[in-house]
């Protein structure tokens, strides 16, 4: 079974501030030169926009002005966290799930926890519709294949 990718970082300041910088000010710090759809085409985005509400989008504005959607905001609690259907450079139907939570920690710091999963969910859905493999690329990274490999490795 493929575990979710989990990352934690502790930063100075309140959860509200960390949330604000992670979302509304994402263009100030996101490493667009490495991680953007524009970068895949030897360019740099004009900006990155995080629409901070459920049903919003995260998208980059490419050098020619077109928008490339990275994610839909599935859940959003200001100052607490958000959940994204994450699919930069791919169709929304091929999204995986990225959750970020902000929690107050010691001495005025905030613990930010990022979890990237969703392949398992898609795998479960795919099992319900036997033989339907349209669950998306997430399946590729999913429990199914990795489980197979781990079984093989164990033999």
């Amino acid at each position, binding site marked *: 079974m493929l575990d979710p990718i989990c990352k934690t970082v502790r930063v100075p*300041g309140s959860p509200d501030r960390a949330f604000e910088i992670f979302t509304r000010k994402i263009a100030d710090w996101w490493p667009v*030169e490495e991680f*953007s*759809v524009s970068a895949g085409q030897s360019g740099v985005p004009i900006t990155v926009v995080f629409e901070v509400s459920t049903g919003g989008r995260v998208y980059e504005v490419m050098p020619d002005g077109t928008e490339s959607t990275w994610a839909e905001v599935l859940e959003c609690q200001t100052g607490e966290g958000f959940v994204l259907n994450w699919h930069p450079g791919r169709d929304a139907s091929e999204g995986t799930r990225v959750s970020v939570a902000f929690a107050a920690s010691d001495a005025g710091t905030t613990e930010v926890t*990022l979890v990237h999963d969703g392949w398992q969910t898609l795998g479960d859905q795919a099992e319900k519709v036997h033989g339907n493999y*349209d669950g998306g*690329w997430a399946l590729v*990274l999913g429990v199914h294949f*990795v489980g197979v490999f781990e079984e093989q490795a164990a033999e």
Partner: protein
Amino acid sequence: MTYANLQSVQPKFTALADPTRRTVFEIVAKGPHPVTRIAAQLSVSRPAVSQHLKVLMDAGLVTRRPSGRNNIYQAEPASIADLRQYLDTLWSEVLSRFEAEMMKDGKDA
């Protein structure tokens, strides 16, 4: 994902973007198969399966070995590890940049 530093894993993501090819990969991931047995599980012609296998091999996702008169195809486990490693690195770098921004912002305040 069409991210720039994807050079090693980009071909893998691209190869797996096609649903039929993904299904071919899923079949060989379950165990080594000859082309005929893969085609038998799909409503796809044998030459089409061979073409999908070629793309998967070019991307490093599948390997081939001869067995008698047939070629046997199997998934390359290390390739999935590469894809996972890519995602792991991505989030490490993103959070490290976020952390740096929070530190900078904190000092300015």
